[in-house]
């Protein structure tokens, strides 16, 4: 068995050089071909030049985390417009979508509500304000605009700005200091300077023609990437001292942030999007059809992934490729039952570590209930969805849409039950379909021993399950074989780097950033694929710290 797997690994590497019939190249949103085959030498890539600035609005999580940092907790419940996640990532949605009117209204109401609650509590009021205003526009309120404004806007306010906010609150408050305070804080918390991160950079005196992010912009970039919240006092102070334009300064603070528990929370956010876990929220199954199914199952499935990620990245700081290949996981009682394993100590709420042995069919995240259920239908599995996930999410390949007016009917006119494998054969018989399904279905078939909720099965449609398939022409027996080859596949870490870069920059990479991505991937490899190290390398990299100029004023809107 071991020898077979070594052989598989070798033959896989040999086939990597060849391109897929369907999904070989990865194109950007503008259709520019991008030369980022992970095996291509770095010096063949174009010279690095930074991408343009984006205007990111705080995501819902960032807004809530930030409000707690600014005002303390607890805060009253409030509703916000849901985030969108084009290309998988909330950060891309936050930097490209436009807020709706209702979204703006919800900000207005949330700010009113949160500020009202805080000001009604004497201790919290004193800690947020630092003084007690006695009249609109007094010295205390001026200091509030200055200090609260600096924390909320993540930069010092100009004298003109301070006067503007102060005067507006004086005018609207009609003589009452309490009203002025409420109006002031709630207005600042719905101000675009708070809701949006303006990061347009400045000329870099050491590099002519290059723009770098300012220290205050870097403080926000580091903090929202690594903590998913606003800079703390220490980071803001470093920005005030202009320390975040140097390698040492950025490194010191990035490392400090990564050592904090908030980095664990933020990292979970990335993995949940990269693995598209939100789709779990919409998984529903009929208990009559799947007797082990419970109301809490999808939550347990999500917790399992979170525990695996935290264990890999923070507790053990291990090779993150284990995500796809390692037999180590965490289960509670209902997951143990789903997997048919005995996990002492597991209960409804308690998760325990569990190591699948070598004879188990399970290893890695692609054999967890989360992946298997999310990529299946309510009544049957979907080798196509599962294969598509492997291609698109794990390997970052592009699977084109089906051709127009193709016959999508996989039903059987004869009425005799057939396995899904038999029905999917039609994908291969029709040459129009075969071009892509020959790439998607065979890796998807490897999961056929796992039903639509992730339970192991021996039979389908009255016959034994056949889970054989392949990846890029290398024949494999089952999902466990796939886990082993993916753990060694260089496309997997390259894909992870690309997705992290998108998440960090709030946009798709541009062609001139390919070299930076490759360099990150090489550092990642050199570090033994430790994700924490990748975060640190990225945060301190030129690609995260430099920016193209804002398009000139008067340029046409691209639409």
């Amino acid at each position, binding site marked *: 068995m071991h020898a077979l797997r070594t052989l598989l690994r070798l033959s896989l590497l040999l086939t990597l050089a060849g391109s897929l019939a369907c999904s070989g190249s990865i194109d950007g*949103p503008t*259709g520019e071909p991008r030369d980022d085959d992970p095996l291509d030498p770095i010096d063949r890539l174009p010279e690095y030049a930074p991408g343009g*600035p984006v*205007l990111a609005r705080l995501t819902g999580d960032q807004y809530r985390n930030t409000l707690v940092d600014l005002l303390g907790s607890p805060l009253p419940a409030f*509703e916000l*417009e*849901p985030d*969108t*996640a*084009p290309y*998988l990532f909330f950060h891309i949605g936050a930097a*490209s*979508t*436009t*807020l*709706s*009117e*209702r979204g*703006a*209204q919800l900000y207005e109401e949330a700010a*009113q509500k949160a500020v009202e609650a805080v000001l009604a509590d004497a201790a919290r009021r004193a800690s947020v304000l630092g003084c007690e205003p006695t009249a609109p526009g007094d010295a205390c309120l001026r200091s509030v605009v200055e200090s609260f404004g600096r924390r909320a806007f993540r930069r010092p306010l100009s004298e003109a*700005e301070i006067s*503007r*906010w102060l005067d*507006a*609150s004086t005018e*609207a408050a*009609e003589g009452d200091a309490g009203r002025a305070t409420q109006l002031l804080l*709630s*207005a600042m918390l*719905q*101000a*675009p*300077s708070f809701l949006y991160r*303006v990061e*347009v950079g400045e000329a870099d005196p050491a590099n002519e023609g290059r723009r770098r992010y300012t220290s205050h912009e870097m403080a926000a970039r580091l903090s929202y990437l690594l903590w998913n919240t606003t800079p703390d006092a220490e980071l803001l102070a470093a920005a005030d001292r202009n320390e975040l334009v140097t390698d040492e300064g950025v490194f010191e603070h990035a490392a400090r942030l990564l050592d904090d528990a908030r980095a664990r929370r933020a990292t979970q956010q990335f993995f949940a999007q990269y693995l598209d876990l939100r*789709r779990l929220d*919409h998984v529903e199954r*009929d208990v009559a059809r799947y007797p082990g199914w419970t109301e809490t199952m999808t939550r347990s499935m999500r917790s399992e992934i979170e525990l695996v990620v935290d264990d890999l990245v923070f507790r053990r700081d291990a090779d993150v490729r284990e995500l796809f290949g390692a037999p180590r996981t965490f289960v509670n009682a209902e997951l143990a039952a789903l997997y048919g394993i005995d996990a002492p100590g597991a209960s409804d709420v308690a998760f325990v570590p569990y190591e699948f042995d070598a004879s188990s069919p399970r290893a890695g995240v692609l054999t967890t209930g989360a992946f298997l259920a999310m990529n299946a*239908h*309510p*009544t049957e599995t979907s080798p196509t969805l599962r294969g598509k996930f492997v291609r*698109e999410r794990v390997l970052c390949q592009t*699977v*084109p*849409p089906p051709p*127009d*007016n*193709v*016959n*999508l*009917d*996989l039903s059987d*006119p004869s009425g005799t039950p057939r396995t899904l494998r038999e029905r999917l054969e039609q994908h291969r018989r029709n040459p129009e379909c075969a071009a892509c399904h020959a790439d998607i279905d065979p890796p998807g078939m490897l999961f056929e021993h796992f039903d639509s909720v992730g339970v192991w099965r021996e039979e389908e449609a009255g016959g034994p399950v056949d889970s054989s398939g392949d990846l890029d022409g290398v024949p494999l027996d089952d999902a466990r074989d796939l886990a082993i080859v993916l753990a060694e596949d260089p496309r997997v870490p390259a894909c992870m780097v690309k997705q992290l870069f998108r998440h960090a920059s709030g946009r798709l990479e541009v062609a001139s950033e390919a070299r930076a991505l490759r360099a990150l991937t090489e550092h990642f490899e050199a570090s033994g694929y430790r994700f924490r190290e990748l975060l640190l390398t990225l945060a301190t990299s030129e690609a995260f710290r430099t920016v193209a100029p*804002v*398009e000139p004023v008067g340029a*046409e*809107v*691209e*639409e």
Partner: protein
Amino acid sequence: MSAPKKPKGGREVEKGVLEKARSFPWGPGLKPLKRRTFLRGAVGGAAIGLALPTLDAMLGPSGAHADGTTAGPIFGVFFWANGLPWHAGMGGETAGVTYPDLWTPTATGAGFAPSELLMPLARHRVSVVTGLEPKTEVPPNPPGQSDGHMRGFMVAMTGDRIRPEGFDHPSHTLTALRPTLDQYVARHAEFYGDQPSRFRSVQIGISEARFHDYGHWNAISYNGPDSLNLPILRPTQLHDQLFSVPDDLVALGRRARMMDAVMDDARALQTQLGARDRARLDEHLTHLSEIQRRLDLAAATCETPARPVDSGDVTAKLDAMSELLAIALRCNLTRVFSLMLTSPATTHVFSNLGVTDGLHKTCHDGLWDRVRVTQAHQMELFARFLDVLAGTTEPTGTTLLDRCAIWGTSEYSEGWKHGTSEMPVVIAGGACGGLRTGVHAREPRGNLCKAQLTLLRSIGLSEASWGWNGGETSDVFGELLG
């Protein structure tokens, strides 16, 4: 107390159109007094909160006027997912199996006999237009833009194609090039004129099932590219949005004034940004001024219904939200709505009908009988929504449905092959006399945009043409217009 003002000048309208507009009972503009104006005038500018008499001239945004004219037509969208059961006319025939057309009525013109699927809607004398399809050109790159879910949806809602730039079929990332019909009307100078309702529009969604969780699949209303209006999905949220006005109206006025500082901040930021982000902040500024206007209305709603109880059941939710919307329309809190029963390519499992899988997959599995049952059910729910509008009578004796022009459609004609020929088009309501009811117009391979232009004309808009990128038309279905 001055007489209602004439509409402001500066809006050039063709003569013929103006004459047409005059013929409508609501007239082009009764300007209501602002409540604040009354307060200021009555008590010398001191801000006080007190119960106010409802003077006829103030009634503008709250229903019928003393002279019998109403607050004007209501524009609505009713959207259901996954089209219709397929038949040969849609290209849905395969070797050996012929499926009947359960949608297209046999006769055209007024008083047509309803087909099986239109039967529930017949009690509301809806009109249908059949034979239509999108005419927009499909750029070859990026690939996948011809997919019915996306192309059909965009044409049915905007009259234009998907924005090619940034389109990504694999991740289902797509956006509109321009506003959807509801937003086009809500911001049209000829619709609200200078007296918009408290809310220019309201977006409602019923089923929370979604094919993708990427935002663009959870909404049918766009202001423009990458600018979505996500629907309100829970009755309690809809209630709070429409009816929860705090008791302290004066405090709302102060919040309104403070919005000036927020808008100043937005304008200051804009100077640092590139064109695209400036446009995003422009939109944000527009929203802020709408919110400011709403805060500044400082008026309670004409009726505050009890806060409903949230339910996951589609029919119960539809009932609760229809009732809330009807009250809001009667109180003139808005005159534009969209109601998304199910989202494009929905994964909703109609287990109440014995269907075991999501609707999108059921279509792809070729389970025609189940699609027939499901879509008949969605039409029944459409009719149930219209029941509420038809059952809400205004002081003038007309019903809300008499005032409505409702665009009823789906993202494509059928879900088996994502076909877009023979798109479903239902036009419901009387548009204050602007629409004839109970008419079947048919134009095989006709332009879908022609039906949209017809609907826009029915509510008094003077659009000379409609449709873009191959969908352009200046024709209307005259037989539908009143």
